């Protein structure tokens, strides 16, 4: 659908985007994930031709060209953060995209009706936009952006200010819009949302893309410490590759040694070992010392926090390192895990992911 080449954007000397190279495929949901201020909105605005890039270019696989901006722009649409609406009726808001395309009134009427059904706001035509709730506003914004059937839709934090119920409604709506083949670029700071909706994710940090990949790649094989931390890899241990034997290698961290899958690293290299909280198992105390588990650490539970739902989060002090472990509630109950008790942890060999140590 589109490809960018070395896209840069700066505002009055302040760099907002740096060397962005990405490709968005037709029909996919592409998430741009990053913390606030990472440049997500700027990236979307540049792609939507609202801002001129300071450098680099965008290649669209769409009719029209950079010269015929209007024709090109009319193939895409953007839903802005906080859904700014015109101070008019819902009907006039939703109809706007067709009005400027000089569509006939009969067609507009029929399409507005159909689009309002899609977003679940039938019968809202004559309501003034100013009287709507946050969730309703967001859905009207979606109706406005989709009524003229764009091929490419940009969504800027569509659920940022919504309660969980409305968040669910919007997420479902995004999938429904995507189904007939509309390409969607979704900017969000919520990793769960990106994971649930996107086929591919780009992690944006301070104007730079840290990693692009499928959700699995991003979550289980982060390439940088930033990505690892941002997607919720709580346990990151700095260390050095001690030795390498076939498909495994030994990494010495400050407090303990870990056996991890071998990859391109060599002995002596500075690395980080990452493991997600849900990949650490709590073993029963009476499990014999010598078992199939390769990385077994002993520590003391210092804190237990409910994660809502079925999971509990344990903080386990192992020497000077505090490990974060997610266990199912029923397991914790059976094992009688309590603050102050000892716990034996197993760090699954296959789930330990090694990245290069960067000194940022």
């Amino acid at each position, binding site marked *: 659908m589109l490809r960018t080449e070395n896209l840069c954007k700066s505002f009055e000397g302040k760099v907002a985007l740096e060397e962005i190279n990405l490709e968005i495929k037709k029909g996919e949901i592409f998430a741009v994930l990053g913390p606030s201020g990472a440049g997500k909105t700027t990236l979307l605005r540049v792609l939507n031709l609202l801002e001129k890039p300071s450098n680099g270019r965008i290649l669209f696989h769409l009719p029209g060209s950079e010269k015929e901006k*209007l024709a090109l*722009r009319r193939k895409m649409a953007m839903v802005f953060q906080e859904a700014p609406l*015109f*101070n008019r009726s819902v009907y006039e808001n939703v109809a706007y*995209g067709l009005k*400027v395309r000089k569509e006939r009134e009969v067609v507009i009427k029929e399409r507005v009706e159909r689009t309002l059904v899609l977003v679940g706001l039938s019968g809202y035509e004559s309501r003034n936009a100013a009287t709507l709730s946050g969730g309703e506003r967001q859905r009207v914004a979606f109706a*406005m952006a989709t009524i003229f059937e764009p091929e490419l839709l940009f969504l800027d934090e569509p659920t940022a200010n919504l309660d969980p119920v409305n968040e669910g409604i919007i997420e479902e709506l995004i999938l429904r819009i995507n189904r007939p083949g509309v390409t969607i670029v979704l900017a969000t700071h919520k990793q769960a949302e990106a994971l649930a909706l996107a086929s591919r994710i780009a992690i944006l940090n301070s104007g730079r893309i840290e990693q692009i990949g499928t959700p699995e790649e991003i979550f289980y094989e982060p390439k940088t410490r930033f990505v690892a931390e941002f997607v919720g890899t709580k346990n990151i241990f700095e260390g050095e590759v001690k030795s390498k034997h076939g498909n495994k290698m030994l990494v010495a961290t400050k407090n303990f040694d870990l056996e991890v899958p071998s990859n391109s690293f060599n002995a002596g290299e500075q690395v980080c070992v990452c493991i997600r909280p849900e990949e650490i198992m709590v073993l029963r105390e009476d499990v014999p010392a010598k078992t199939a588990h390769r990385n077994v650490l002993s520590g003391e539970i210092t804190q237990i926090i409910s994660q809502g739902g079925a999971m509990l989060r344990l903080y386990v002090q192992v020497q000077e390192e505090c490990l974060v472990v997610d266990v199912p509630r029923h397991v914790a109950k059976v094992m009688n895990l309590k603050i102050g008790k000892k716990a034996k942890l197993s760090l699954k060999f296959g789930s330990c992911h090694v990245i290069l140590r960067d000194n940022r």
Partner: protein
Amino acid sequence: MSSVEFLYEGLARAVEMILTLDPYVISVTKVQLKVTGSAVLLSVLFSIPLAALISFKEFLGKRILIILIDTCMGLPPVVVGLVVFIFFISSGPLGFLNLFYTPAAMVIAQFILATPIITGVTIAALSAVGKPIRDTAISLGATRSDVVWLVIREAKFGILTAMLAGFGRAIAEVGAILIAGGNIVYWGGESYTRTLSTAIVVEADRGDIAAAIAFGIILLAIAFSVNLCLNLLKRRA
């Protein structure tokens, strides 16, 4: 007479003038409405496109221009009257138009007074329509002129306020139209260029304070009605 008595008598005279449909008062009121109405109407037709042009175009000296317009909001009416005098008196550059001491000259004077206010407040109203609204329209495929129209429509309350402010300035003003219009009334009491506001000056100069107050009350009543109508319009929209 004490000042309270002046007010009381002024009020009574105002009511009497209105109830008896005093032809002099009606004629003066008509000239006022004709002059101020045309001046504000022409100013609106001129100011709103001008404000849109300034608001939407980026050009060198834009900020200075806006500051200049805001400064002109406080233009002393007498100065405007003198400018009209210099340009439109027979020996002036526009003297050939024979507009001096006519209602047209008064319209021009009030137009000059109202335009900076209507333009300035409209520019402010247009810029108050946030960038998100403009971006939304552009993103939805609007052309430049679509966006301009949209922003004007979104700013309609602000523009209405601008019109009211311009109207208020024009209707209350005396100095400029006194010079430009000559404050002429025909022998039988039919007004040519005398308005309610200049009639107040005439009565005050004659020492008839109660009559001056009466005219003032009628002027206020008209200003109030116009404001009321436009506010009702706002409420309905």
